[in-house]
């Protein structure tokens, strides 16, 4: 047993990317096994290693963990990125659920028809600008700290940075009305583990291209 967590997923962002971010931010090295074909997925299912027949799956600490949120919560707690008590955890959970809703919209975008894509892209930008980013901007303004919760780096900061960068890929100037989030982005990006993850050659995956989308559709029967 290597001791390093092992991630099972396709070779792209999808639902696994937030897990890669969190592990990287925590300074935890991990291995990856990529699902390239439908047969790869079938084999995992037949081997009985996927609790609900689905990926992401992460092998770590003697467990074969599935369900993205369960995996992320476990990692956050294990690596002390989940606040100091129940109330801080509640805030982190609330913030993270918000960014998850936003990032899910972006994740689904490439699977829509051209017409729906345009409509949903506009909705993503509207939501980022009017619903989600104002919340984080206000949180930073209200307490004046460097981090979103408890004056300490947490899962919420990592998730919000991931969301900011994803939305910027859709609309580069999305942060123009959010000065505190701009500063936040700079600060969190410069944390050594995160800086390393943002450099070429890391395990961070690129935005999905048509080739990847076609492969995913084939593997998962979408």
């Amino acid at each position: 047993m290597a001791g390093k967590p092992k991630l099972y997923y396709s070779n792209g962002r999808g639902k696994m990317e937030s897990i890669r971010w969190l592990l990287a931010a925590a300074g935890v090295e991990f291995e990856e096994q990529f699902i390239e074909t439908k047969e790869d997925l079938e084999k995992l299912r037949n081997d009985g290693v996927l609790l609900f027949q689905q990926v992401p799956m992460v092998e770590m600490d003697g467990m074969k963990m599935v369900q993205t949120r369960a995996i992320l919560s476990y990692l956050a707690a294990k690596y002390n990125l989940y606040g100091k008590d129940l109330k801080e955890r509640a805030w982190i959970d609330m913030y993270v659920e918000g960014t998850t809703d936003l990032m899910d919209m972006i994740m689904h975008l490439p699977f829509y028809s051209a017409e729906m894509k345009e409509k949903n892209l506009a909705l993503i930008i509207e939501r980022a600008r009017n619903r989600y980013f104002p919340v984080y901007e206000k949180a930073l303004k209200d307490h004046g700290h460097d981090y979103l919760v408890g004056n300490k780096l947490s899962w919420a900061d990592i998730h919000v940075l991931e969301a900011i960068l994803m939305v910027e890929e859709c609309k580069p100037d999305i942060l123009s009305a959010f000065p505190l989030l701009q500063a936040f982005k700079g600060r969190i990006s410069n944390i050594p583990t995160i800086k390393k993850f943002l450099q070429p050659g890391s395990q961070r995956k690129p935005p999905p291209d048509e080739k990847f989308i076609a492969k995913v559709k084939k593997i998962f029967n979408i």
Partner: protein
Amino acid sequence: MSGKPRLTYCNGRGRMEPVRWLLAAAGVEFEEKFLETREQLLKLIKDGDLLFEQVPLVEIDGMKMVQTRAILSYIAGKYNLYGKDLKERALIDMYVEGITDLMQMILMFPFSPPEAKEKNLASIAEKATKRYFPVFEKVLKQHGQDFLVGNRFSWADVQLLEAILAVEEKIPAVLSGFPQLQVFKTKMSNMPTIKKFLQPGSPRKPPPDEHYVASVMAIFK
């Protein structure tokens, strides 16, 4: 301030029902404020009460909590329904997330167009009997204990019972291939706090009907 948690949502199950279940199972009394019109929702948004402009909203311990999972995790943590350590919590989270995926199908069902309903119902039946229920049947069989995780009552047990009953409302014989789940259902239903919640007059909401669907569509557009 009464000290009791206050739930703000429509007068129906939707995304708030698991919260009602968990509070009830923990023996916690709560108040409810029902949204009847779109204007009431817009007022809540305008007043800044909804972090992401959405309900469910649960006012608890000085916080205005939103996001169902965040609310449920907090309640589970506070009332010792979240296992004894990180690994038990991981198992509970995995189980709850799986069940939530199944419940999501049931949640969306009333809002699907009439021509899709038959297909969606078949999908719920298939997922329940092939993907989700077999997992919990096996878990219970393997450890032989009454509860899913750690030989102790947890959020996972509450969520699974809720799901079993919700699926049974659509597919009455759904547990016929699952003897362990049948026993589990009886045992959990007989736990005093849950038994009380299952009786008429409790805060438990009935299955969605056309009237509920129409009011939800009007409020949330």
